[in-house]
């Protein structure tokens, strides 16, 4: 569940601290890119994220992020009744979220090219 997530306050290993910061920075980006492919059931989205190897994050990180994205207006939710359990909350990218994602993609491309050619 926790993957290799460790809060910087808890780890004295510089590499661990660095990976934590990288993952935190990328998490929002990943969520928006994932939702750009189509709406997703919240529980499934969380399960995907908690099992993503190097990028895995705990539920304690993902759910607050999803709530924040919704409050910010970057994602929208709607409920779908289900015969197999509680009503399912589906997440999708809002128009504003799409704009943000476009900006993030451009920035990401720029970062990648800088990293590939530091000179």
């Amino acid at each position, binding site marked *: 569940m926790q993957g290799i997530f460790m809060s910087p306050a808890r780890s004295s290993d510089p590499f661990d601290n660095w990976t934590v910061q990288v993952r935190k920075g990328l998490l929002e980006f990943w969520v928006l890119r994932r939702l750009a492919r189509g709406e997703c059931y919240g*529980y499934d989205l969380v399960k995907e994220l908690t099992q993503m190897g190097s990028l895995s994050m705990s539920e304690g990180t993902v759910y607050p992020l999803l709530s924040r994205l919704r409050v910010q207006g970057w994602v929208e939710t709607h409920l779908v009744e289900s015969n197999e359990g509680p009503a399912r909350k589906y997440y999708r990218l809002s128009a504003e979220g799409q704009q943000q994602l476009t900006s993030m993609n451009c920035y990401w491309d720029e970062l990648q090219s800088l990293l590939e050619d530091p000179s």
Partner: protein
Amino acid sequence: MPPLPRSAEAERLEADYLKRLKQVLTRLPNELSVDIFENVNNHISAALAGYSGEVSLSQMAQVLEELGPPESFVEEEAPPSQPPPIPEMNHANNDSRQELSESLHLLYTASIILVIGIWIPLIDLYLFDIIACFLISKIVLSPAHKRLDMIDLGSSAKICAWSLVGLFVFSVLEALSPLWGLIGLPFAIASLVYSLVMMWQIYAGLKRICQQVELSSFSTRIEKARNTYFTFLIISISIGILLAAIVTLSSPTNSEVSIEVMSLLLLPVNWFFGWMFFLKPLKDLQKQIESPITS
């Protein structure tokens, strides 16, 4: 579709978790906290949807363990101006560690009273247990020991203490008529159930403390102790039921003996093993927390 039914213990565990979650979420803006709470609530239901029949305590515990402690939901989102949700314990703050060490010492003392009480033949063995449960409740609910963060344990300990009081009263009355012993049976069941709940809450509380003071190795020990205890519990319940059945079948008029046998095995024995299996880790944890202060 209505949610899956939960066993009483599972429902209590879930309610405790959600109550704690609500408390920690108050650190966040209302809109965020409401949304996160709703998400976590739905997550629990969705995770349990895979099970059939009544959700058991262990199934609920597994789901909640995978979710992580309620505090983890505010660690990232609490505004920078606020202190971290687990303040000053990550670093060797002597005052905080001293306070926690003293609180753990008191909890350990109360637990010793409980364990010794089981073996002192003082009127059905309950008096020391009653004193210990009230003491535990007083300790964990006192503001002076807030660092233990075991408020839920305080409530359960109180209920358990009063159940034992009831059991004690009816055990004494049983001398007048065996019927009183039967009437006291619900108190026996209640004290057993709440002793299990207390046990779970203590283990959960100690694990939280291990996380706060960054002693993950102790967290593993606490978990092993908990698993060993529940294994003994299952064994003792099985043996109790088997022996009670044998006694009843061999001599149907001796149903009171069966109940006594079951009471003996289910209540004091599993309490004894349970409390013994966490006393040592508890004491060692207290020493470990103390050691940066004295070194």
